[in-house]
């Protein structure tokens, strides 16, 4: 079984940050990049399935050099090889990454694509299912269990609101988006991290590699402005030292419970 896992390096703003001069994004000096919270669950799931049934795990990212962070983490966990499609995608277009991933699916023809449910910075919750639409694979989002069925089907548990699970059967090849908590992602030890550096990491230029992916018909939503929650937050802020603050909390609780 060939499993492709798209992974993303997400941007985490510092506690205090400044905006760029046009006011349309956070100044990159105030951003750190790390693996998207959901992606290790997808990588772990792929590794377990390939360990059980044979095959390979390919991890793919669409992004600049900083996106290799997520690829290296996945290789250290045990993925076989990595591909980076070298292009920056607009953070406001949930279809942008999917279009480039579609090119990789066309070349690699995986039996299964496992995405994360969402990315913790953009939080579109859309890339995997958009990719499925572009390559016409059956798809199910927010999957919390996967069991192999014989004969090209999987039985998956789709996590619904309120914790109810809908068990479904899906035909391969397919795209699933994997929910946190589906497994216990393995930690990569130092040796694995070193070994990861020796694994194949292919950087492809989407313009020249034939991996330009699905032609984008849209240009994505147009960003007009961004603003901080602070301006709209409703909370009455309690200030002071820890003791003062705690005393005030005690009072508020006593009042509210009276």
């Amino acid at each position, binding site marked *: 079984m060939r499993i492709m896992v798209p992974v993303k390096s997400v*941007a985490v*703003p510092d*506690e205090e940050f400044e905006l760029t001069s046009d006011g349309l994004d956070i100044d990159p000096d105030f951003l750190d990049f790390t693996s998207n919270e959901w992606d290790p669950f997808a990588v772990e799931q792929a590794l377990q399935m390939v360990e059980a049934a044979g095959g390979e795990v390919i991890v793919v990212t669409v992004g600049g050099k900083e996106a290799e962070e997520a690829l290296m983490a996945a290789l250290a966990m045990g993925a076989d090889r990595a591909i980076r499609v070298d292009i920056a995608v607009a953070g*406001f277009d*949930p*279809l942008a990454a999917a279009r480039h991933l579609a090119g990789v699916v066309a070349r690699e023809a995986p039996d299964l694509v496992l995405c994360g449910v969402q990315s*913790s910075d953009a*939080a*579109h919750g*859309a890339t*995997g*299912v*958009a990719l*499925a*639409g*572009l390559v016409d694979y059956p798809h*199910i*989002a*927010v999957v919390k269990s996967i069991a192999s069925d014989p004969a090209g089907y999987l039985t998956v*548990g*789709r996590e*619904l*609101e*309120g*914790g109810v*699970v*809908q*068990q*479904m*059967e*899906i*035909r391969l090849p397919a795209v699933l988006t994997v929910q*946190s908590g589906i497994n216990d992602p393995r930690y990569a030890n130092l040796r694995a991290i070193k070994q990861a550096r020796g694994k194949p990491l292919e950087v492809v230029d989407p313009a020249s590699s034939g991996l330009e992916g699905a032609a984008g*018909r*849209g240009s994505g*939503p*147009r*960003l*007009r402005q*961004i*603003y*901080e*929650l*602070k301006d709209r*937050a*409703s*909370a*009455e*802020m*309690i200030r002071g030292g*820890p003791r003062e*603050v*705690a005393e005030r*909390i005690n009072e*508020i*609780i*006593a009042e*509210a*419970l*009276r």
Partner: protein
Amino acid sequence: MAGTLVIAEHRRGELRQVTAEMLTALRGAGEALAPTKILLVGAGVTALADQADIPGVDEILLCETSAEHFDPWSVENAIAAVIAAEQPRLIAFGHTVDAMSVAPALAAKLGRELTTDVTALRDEDGAIVVERPIYGGRLFAELELPGEGPIVTIRPGQFDAAGASAARAGRRVVDPQGAAESSPICHVEFLEGDTDQIDITTADFLLAVGRGIGDEDLDRYADLAGEIGATLAVSRPLVDSGQATGARQVGQSGKTVKPRVYLALGISGAPQHLAGMRDADCIIAVNQDPDAPIFGVAHYGVVGDLHEIVDELVPAPD
């Protein structure tokens, strides 16, 4: 190209509340997005038509398919056919688990723009303008949606649900084209969530802790809850890591609670968490990040290290 097509969400014979919330959002956006047609897809949806008579609905479209329970494949095909026939100016879903399985693929296949988790929606001189969170809700972006018939998914709980309407909207049966072909996906069964001993939904006072407690043992907070007369609740990461059971989880995929006091320590306030607690009578949030979205719903906020504060908390009066 006119009006809005709202995709009604229903599960096991009930229309879900987010459907009525979408109608409120659209009424707030004014005449420019009218008229509103609401689409019900699935087996037996004709029986749900009365539930879809929500203020602001101009027409109810009924698409009977053979799929008794949601499956992305048949729903997607049916919706695509209706979009082609009706040519709406805007297509609206709830930002729900069902929509996450359908809306992005539809946008991809139809070549439409997509914006998810929308928290505000309006028409400005002919432009559809939405707001959505970015960077985990620490900032919000205002976006303009170009192109024909863009698709949005609207955040559940963001708008009040409109009540039932006295007026009766027209009903129209639409053809489930394509949905009848054999689906690569089928429903097997529903499994109910955690049925544990603890019931956090009846507690008056919840002490809710999140990933902000760091490496500290959850037992420390279970003890604290006991000391101050609260019931312990948690955000999802503490369940995912096995420290707490699902019965204590507040949020979209956990429990919906409405205690008199919700004391949130080290919880950022992701939309899926807010979905479960935003209606609590008194929300007090402690977080070291002044931009944490939890402060958007809290009544009282403290910017600071939770560890410095917990030792000073005292028992609540009976």
